[in-house]
């Protein structure tokens, strides 16, 4: 194994081999240069966002762009935060995000356990239906869902974003968890049964605690989805005091579009928690997406 291959995280054989095929110094240098170009391209818009967010008023429209804010004005963030009821938006977003997370984790786990461990007639057919609904475009069900929520009096409430989570959440979550349950040894179930545990006791006390990594993956997907969700709130929430951050940021940019620096401060504020979650739980992100990729195999 080459010395640098030992430095990268342990992974499949593909990577080690690929690194052997690009062994020469010139080859590695080329890869570095290309990767630097790639990350320059992906990061430049983000750098532009952060740099603009700190610019003093009047300099944010300068062209050619002055990249270093002189002096950096941190107050832009405070002003942007106060210009609209950001705390209310944040609270609303957190209520939806946290309650929906609880529902997603509990119900998707239980359903996944059923599909992975319990034998019942029609299981395969129902699982195929579940796989098919992963791909169902949201906009196909959007109108009738709006009708349903309207007749239930749920328009301008948080129920439409929380209640469905307690009914399995997104089918993708169920699929991911089911794949994880399948990797746990059957002997665990048998031992629990021998100890007198019923099916649900076996799930709750024996298997569920072992699915931590997969639950973390689903938790992150659920958090990010609800934090970023725009279309649902756009259609269903119509009074300011019920707005989520995603709607609040639009409200802000509609009202204060002239203040580019503050608008960029607002978008940065909304992006930062995602970046933080990403850096804290990077491996779960990657694992979750790896697992979704397994459907292709």
């Amino acid at each position: 194994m080459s010395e640098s291959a030992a430095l990268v995280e342990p992974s499949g054989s593909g990577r080690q081999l690929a690194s052997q095929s690009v062994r020469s110094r010139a080859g590695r240098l080329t890869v570095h240069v290309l990767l630097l170009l790639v990350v320059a391209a992906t990061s430049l818009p983000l750098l532009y966002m952060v740099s603009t967010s700190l610019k003093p008023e009047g300099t944010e429209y300068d062209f050619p762009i002055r990249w270093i804010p002189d002096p950096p004005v941190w107050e832009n963030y405070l002003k942007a935060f106060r210009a609209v009821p950001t705390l209310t938006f944040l609270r609303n977003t957190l209520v939806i995000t946290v309650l929906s997370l609880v529902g997603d984790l509990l119900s998707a786990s239980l359903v996944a356990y059923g599909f992975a461990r319990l034998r019942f007639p029609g299981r395969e057919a129902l699982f195929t239906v579940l796989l098919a609904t992963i791909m169902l475009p949201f906009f196909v069900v959007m109108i009738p869902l709006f009708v349903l929520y309207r007749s239930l009096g749920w328009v301008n409430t948080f129920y439409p974003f929380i209640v469905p989570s307690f009914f399995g959440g997104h089918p993708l979550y169920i699929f991911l968890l089911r794949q994880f349950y399948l990797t746990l040894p059957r002997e665990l179930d048998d031992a629990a049964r021998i100890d007198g545990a019923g099916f649900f006791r076996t799930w709750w006390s024996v298997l569920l605690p072992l699915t931590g990594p997969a639950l973390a993956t689903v938790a992150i997907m659920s958090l990010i989805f609800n934090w970023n969700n725009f279309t649902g709130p756009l259609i269903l929430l119509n009074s300011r005091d019920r707005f989520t951050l995603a709607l609040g940021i639009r409200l802000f940019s509609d009202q204060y579009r002239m203040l580019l620096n503050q608008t960029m401060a607002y978008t940065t504020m909304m992006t930062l928690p995602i970046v933080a979650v990403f850096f804290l739980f990077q491996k779960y992100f990657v694992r979750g997406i790896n697992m979704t990729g397994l459907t292709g195999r």
Partner: protein
Amino acid sequence: MSPKGIGALGLTALFQRHGQRHRLSLLQQEAIAGYIAILPWLLGLVFFALGPILASFILMFTHWEVLTPPRFSGLENLQRLAADPMVPIALFNTLFYTVLAVPFHLAAALFVALLLNVGVKGTNIYRVLAYLPSQMPVVASSILWFFIFSPTYGLANQVLSWVGIPPQKWLWDVFLVKPSLVLMAVWALGNSMIIFLAGLQGVPEVLYEAAKIDGANVWRLFRHVTLPMLSPTILFNLIVGVIGSFQIFTNVFLMTDGGPGTASLMLVLYIYRNAFVYFRMGYASVLAWLLLIIVLILTVLQFRLSRLWVFYEGEVK
């Protein structure tokens, strides 16, 4: 054996006798438990997916403006669909966007994944920076890119000036607005890239070794080993990508609102307008069904065509 284990054995005996007396067999009990376990999802499926799809089908044949009660209108909405000049425009725009965005997005994602797969020093940092844009809230990135594309002070024109290209009007240019959206889609290549990386790491080493013994160079290794072995992953990304790009909405809604003129009017934006701006729920349902049928046809088509180019391990051809 531990005392606990012996105790467990005794308990089993007890349970078995108990089970024999019970009316339901163990298999039946398991089946009932199974149905109870999946019940939340089953109910959700009925109320939040199948029910709405059915309701949407019925809505197609009604005239309904939300505030007045719906009335049966027969095929009126379908006739409107056939005569609506906006529909071909929206379909063309969406298809045009998809045909450009999906291949460029996938090619870029694969390219970056291949580079990352080499595993040079600092790969972790490169990976993070390439991945982050895809996780940014779409509202935030739409607002950001709206300013990046500014004809007078935007970053996009700044970059062009570095390579000596005159400034463009981007979102305000009939011909550039769709390519501008494609650029945004390419920028957010992270998810597809990670899936490609996973696929690449699943390619068995022996294949590369065998090919190298046969004297294959880097290009031939890619063309004859990597690509075929990666083809199931490519198919997955392709299908997800097409479905996703056919539903492009948030960024056009926030950045162009379909403009200039109708140059970026996309199918879902048109559905949204009909449903929640013009309150034509029946007609919007027709358009939603059109979206469903198109997505279904494209998905089935891709699966069919995939037989020609996707290679599955263990399959005898």
